[in-house]
């Protein structure tokens, strides 16, 4: 596969390491609340595992070491968009 890196252009997926759903960005912050156990369980274990456009995390280990959010169709492997995970994370309101 070829991942069109937003900063580096198209690169062979062999340079990357796959992690999984981009939902892993949304780590719960409510560790002190009563719902924490359920929220962390859902966060870590339950997957939509969509047959269609999947937002997923790839790490450019043999490249610029950026984490990317790749939107890729799991039926055709067509890649619709590639974003820096750091940007996505910030856009979702995460900071420090």
């Amino acid at each position: 596969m070829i991942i069109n890196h937003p900063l580096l252009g198209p690169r062979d997926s062999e340079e990357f390491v796959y992690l999984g759903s981009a939902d892993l960005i949304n780590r719960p912050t409510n560790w002190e609340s009563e719902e924490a156990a359920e929220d962390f369980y859902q966060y870590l274990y339950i997957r939509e595992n969509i047959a269609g456009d999947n937002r997923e995390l790839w790490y450019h280990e043999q490249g610029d070491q950026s984490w990317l959010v790749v939107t890729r169709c799991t039926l055709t492997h067509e890649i619709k968009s590639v974003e820096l995970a750091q940007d996505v994370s910030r856009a979702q309101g995460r900071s420090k």
Partner: protein
Amino acid sequence: MSDYTIVKESPLGGAEHEFDGVTVSEVVDQSLVMIAMPNGKAEEIEAAMSKSCGLSVPAMGQSTQSADGSITLWRLQKNQVLAYYAYESDDAEANIAERFNAPSAYYTDQSDTWAMIRVSGERSRDILERICPIDLDPSVFTLGSVSRTIMEHIGTIIYRDGDDSYVLLTMRSFGRSMLHAIEVSVENVL
């Protein structure tokens, strides 16, 4: 005065091999320093580098040179640059920090991290296409281009420093394996 003397050694002992159309040689005189640019400080750092050395931050995958040509900056990551320059002492980190005069950057010496091998000569691309997944067409990987990729299962930085000349950097411990890989390519192609 210590009773003991410590001496330095390059990763590949200065290996150099000439073949018909290609020369493979270890680069032993270059230092490499990583300069990390904290969020919001990139402009300030670039201004300082520009003022002190006439350096600008290169585009991703590209390089720039200082005004006197002594320092090359590589850009392989968004928030950092690498200074590649002829320097042989073990204090490159302090040296480059002083020359840049950009105190808000973080400097980390990487000179000993890498084994550097130059592959040059008219057949260099024929050799490299057996191991390098990057498109090395001269019109695509232009002079001064730099890229980090994987070759023969070894993370490798490739830098084009001449029309038919490329420098390959692999982590020092992999140096022998990379040199071997290049030599096998030579054997298979030439």
